[in-house]
């Protein structure tokens, strides 16, 4: 009996796959549209920074098939700027209004009968630019006298906050060593293979917008969009298609274009469809932040870290778009990583430069923080001539300290980091890897081993971004906290079960896991459960926290589904009690039947029970009509930041310990990953196959970030990575098969004990590879991506030869 042994925890085949494997997926560009729907194309800035003297659109408007041409003039007349998280004089329009601030910024939208005609008309638009000096270096943007992007701001610094936890000054004064790293973390993006897409419509009679988009949330941005469109939220209906071609956070970046195309539909008086092309995606959609970090540690002789001093300069690009500067604050409760460090100072500056605005991207702040922290741990070992593994071990949070409150307010839910590390060393063969390194070096080969320990946060606290505000500003703004997840389970007149989730899946297999959970609760099989993944804000249960980000599915959404299923089961048991004449506590749900425990013959089919309140509600016990169950769940641990600026930014904290061996080709500077071991403690594993997929997928993104990918800009702000021949994603020959290991410390804070697992390797792997390369080359400072050019320069500087 499958249900008795439980569906959850098994790698069952996904319910999503039959359609996707046969070309019957339903992605945004596969869905039918209303007759008369127009197609949009966007004219984008070729200048990084310029005032726009004039835009000549007459010829375009008169071109064949063109219905309308929309510029900043129309958009500013019909909408408001996108409101930023900070109260700062920043006008965040979705299209240039008088000025362009990055290459790729929209200047005009043409809507026409088809995309070909729309692009023809783009060719006919003339823009008269008055170029301004461009800024691409965030440190240069801080300089007094630097050109400013937003004149009313008066500088390029949108926020400058300092924080102090414990007694860092005393710790630094007392420590025998101060060891620091300087990091420039580059820009990159997870570039889903499906680009952005949407269909927008406007109903003038009701002053209401309807937008179908492969947007993934967070749905807090629904409020931002409604406000920009100058309507109450109930007049903005957002819908998502059944399937989406990946997101990795990136499709949050649809927000400005959703507003822009809503206005275009309003101006044109017809529905407007826009499918972003790849060149648009690379140059102008969204990017992770680049960051300049100086991180210093107060260190004892044995490598014990007593204090950290963070100075982070976050480059959000040309506009501060909500939820930014979230990338900078997502990790704020967790700046001490896996380590027990009680004294921390932080200075966080958010600067604007002439680059594409930043937004969500897998890892979201983790890669930037852990690159600095874990490079620092290796430098500590190097400078004090200690074993890097010993430095990690000596600083770990002890197993008996959980739940552990970090210096800056994070609450680490569970774990046994030391045990996970020992298991990884043993099962992953660290000793053999080190022996390989020594023997290879003896042959004159250039080899290194890198280690890293990382705490992977998941389930964002809706209040953490408010840490960027002062306590006084927060009091004025009102409290923000929690992370509402929701699930609805409905019973139909045939007794079949349908589940609605608001997690906006983008390929992760949510529907399969939800079916497993509900099948377990109700004694059914996953095939009996239909799960609806598309979201409609006009009909479905949702909250501002809905969506697909911060790895919240397994810990929050799946847990909420579980709670809803248990609640529905309890109500059904109550109903069955009357029908089977036994107490509700003795009702069990097994194998498609509802029966009395201990008397399996006293039973009825599940479907009959589940249908009964459709057909005979008059007989419902206590008048409880068991037709549908909706649960909203939020964890109490996600409180708002307090007056000491302590914040538990994330609910769950998984643990990762990685090590790898690399070999560098002395001639070419190419880095080959010989072995990669990744140990995960992500709490309870709900579907091992999907967890493995998240790990190998994250690893591939991270290898890209470490070795290949960069959203590079020329000094004048020209974008250099504009095609997939320039922005290099790893292919099958660049990504090795890692050895994946697990320990399980269930989270006490989530209904199923699960934690997020989707982003960890994006945090751990870039720095793990960098540590291995640093070990191979004896390099103290190195920044990503580790291109052959950079590696060869390091080799030649080490060997004293000209490159």
């Amino acid at each position, binding site marked *: 009996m499958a249900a008795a042994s439980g569906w959850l925890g098994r790698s069952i085949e996904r319910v999503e796959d*039959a359609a996707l*494997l046969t*070309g019957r997926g339903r992605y945004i*560009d596969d869905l039918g549209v209303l007759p008369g729907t127009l197609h949009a194309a966007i004219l984008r800035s070729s200048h990084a920074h310029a005032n726009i003297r004039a835009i000549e659109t007459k010829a375009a408007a008169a071109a064949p098939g063109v219905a309308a041409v929309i510029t900043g003039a129309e958009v500013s007349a019909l909408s408001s700027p996108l409101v930023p998280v900070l109260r700062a004089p920043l006008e965040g329009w979705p299209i240039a209004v008088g000025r362009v601030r990055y290459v790729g910024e929209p200047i005009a939208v043409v809507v026409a009968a088809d995309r070909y005609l729309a692009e023809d008309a783009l060719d006919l638009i003339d823009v008269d630019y008055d170029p301004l000096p461009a800024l691409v270096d965030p440190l240069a943007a801080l300089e007094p006298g630097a050109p400013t992007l937003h004149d009313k701001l008066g500088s390029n610094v949108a926020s400058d906050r300092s924080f102090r936890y414990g007694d860092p000054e005393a710790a630094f004064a007392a420590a025998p060593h101060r060891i620091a790293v300087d990091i420039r973390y580059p820009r990159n993006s997870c570039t*889903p*293979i499906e680009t952005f897409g949407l269909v927008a419509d406007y109903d003038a009679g009701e002053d209401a917008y309807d937008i179908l988009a492969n947007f993934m949330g967070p749905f807090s941005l629904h409020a931002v969009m409604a406000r920009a469109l100058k309507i109450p939220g109930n007049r903005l209906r957002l819908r998502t298609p059944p399937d989406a071609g*990946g997101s990795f956070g990136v499709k949050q970046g649809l927000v400005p274009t959703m507003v822009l195309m809503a206005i275009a539909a309003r101006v044109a008086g017809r529905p407007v469809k826009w499918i972003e092309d790849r060149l648009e995606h690379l140059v102008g959609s969204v990017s992770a932040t680049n960051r300049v970090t100086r991180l210093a540690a107060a260190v004892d002789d044995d490598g014990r870290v007593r204090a950290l001093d963070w100075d982070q300069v976050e480059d959000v690009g040309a506009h501060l778009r909500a939820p930014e500067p979230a990338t900078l604050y997502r990790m704020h409760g967790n700046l001490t990583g896996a380590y027990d460090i009680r004294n921390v100072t932080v200075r966080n500056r958010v600067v604007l430069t002439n680059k594409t605005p930043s937004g969500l991207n897998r890892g979201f702040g983790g890669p930037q923080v852990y690159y600095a922290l874990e490079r620092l741990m290796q430098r500590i070992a190097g400078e004090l001539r200690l074993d890097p593994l010993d430095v990690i071990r000596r600083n770990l949070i002890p197993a008996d300290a959980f739940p552990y409150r970090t210096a800056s307010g994070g609450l680490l839910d569970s774990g046994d980091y030391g045990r996970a590390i020992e298991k990884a060393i043993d099962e992953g063969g660290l000793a053999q890897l080190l022996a390989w390194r020594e023997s290879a070096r003896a042959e004159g080969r250039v080899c290194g081993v890198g280690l890293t320990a990382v705490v992977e946060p998941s389930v964002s606290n809706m209040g953490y971004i408010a840490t960027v505000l002062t306590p006084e500003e927060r009091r004025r703004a009102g409290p923000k906290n929690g992370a509402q997840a929701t699930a609805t389970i409905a019973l139909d007149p045939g007794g079949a079960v349908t589940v609605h989730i608001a997690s906006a899946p983008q390929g992760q297999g949510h529907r399969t896991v939800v079916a497993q959970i509900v099948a377990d609760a109700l004694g059914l099989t996953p095939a009996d459960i239909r799960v609806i993944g598309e979201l409609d804000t006009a009909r479905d249960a949702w909250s501002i926290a809905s969506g697909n980000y911060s790895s919240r599915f397994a810990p929050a959404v799946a847990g909420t589904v579980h709670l809803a299923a248990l609640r529905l089961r309890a109500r059904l048991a109550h109903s069955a009690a009357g029908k089977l004449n036994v107490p509700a506590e003795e009702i069990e749900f097994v194998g498609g039947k509802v029966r009395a425990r201990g008397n399996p013959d006293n039973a009825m089919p599940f479907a009959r029970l589940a249908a009964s309140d459709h057909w005979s509600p008059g007989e419902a016990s206590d008048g409880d009509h068991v037709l549908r169950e909706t649960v909203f769940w939020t964890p109490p641990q996600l409180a708002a930041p307090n007056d000491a600026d302590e914040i538990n930014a994330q609910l769950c904290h998984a643990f990762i310990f990685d090590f790898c061996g690399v070999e560098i080709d002395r001639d070419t500077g190419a880095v080959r990953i010989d072995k990669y071991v990744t140990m995960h403690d992500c709490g309870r594993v709900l579907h091992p196959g999907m967890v493995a997929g998240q790990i190998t997928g994250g690893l*591939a993104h991270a290898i890209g970030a470490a070795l290949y990918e960069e959203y590079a800009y020329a000094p004048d702000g020209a974008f250099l990575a504009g095609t*997939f021949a320039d922005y290099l994603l790893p*292919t099958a020959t660049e990504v090795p098969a890692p050895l994946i290991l697990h320990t399980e410390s269930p989270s006490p804070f989530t209904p199923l004990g699960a934690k997020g697992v989707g982003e960890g390797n994006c945090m751990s792997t870039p720095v793990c590879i960098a540590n291995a390369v640093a070990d191979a080359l004896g390099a103290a400072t190195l920044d990503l991506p580790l291109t052959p050019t950079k590696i060869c320069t390091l080799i030649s500087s080490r060997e004293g030869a000209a490159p």
Partner: protein
Amino acid sequence: MPRLSADARHRVAFVLNGRAVEGQAEPRMLLTDFLRHVLGMTGTHVGCEHGVCGACTVEIDGVPARACLMLAVQADGAILRTVEGLAPEPGRLSLLQQAFRRHHALQCGFCTPGILMSLDNYLRDNPDPREDDVRIFLTGHLCRCTGYVPIVAAALDAAARLREMKETQT
């Protein structure tokens, strides 16, 4: 010598998944757009339109090729197969498709049709490939979800089962 004028639509006819199909296209229309928006065969996906990502890979006259690097009018008279033609019948999957499902060799599924069309062709000519060769062959495709590990495993597993099936048939 046929000359198709830029401003008009022209008849394009070919065999798609074993059936004769036709539609109208301007000379500049890409084969991807013709398949998806004229013929309604949306299984072939568009990821980059410059021939790098491989999502639009279809079989043209017996070989895998990028549909985005071809004009619809070029395909006139050709024999095409797309992902919609892979399964032996509705409700059943091919061995390769089954292997993908078993190994979780897809997540979002957007790159998958192109990879399936490539591998289906490759495994016919290379029944017993080495893992390294599969990996090199797959460099013509970008996947952002899986890290390729399960795709390689699925391809090798499918190859083994195809060999097995052939042996039992002979």
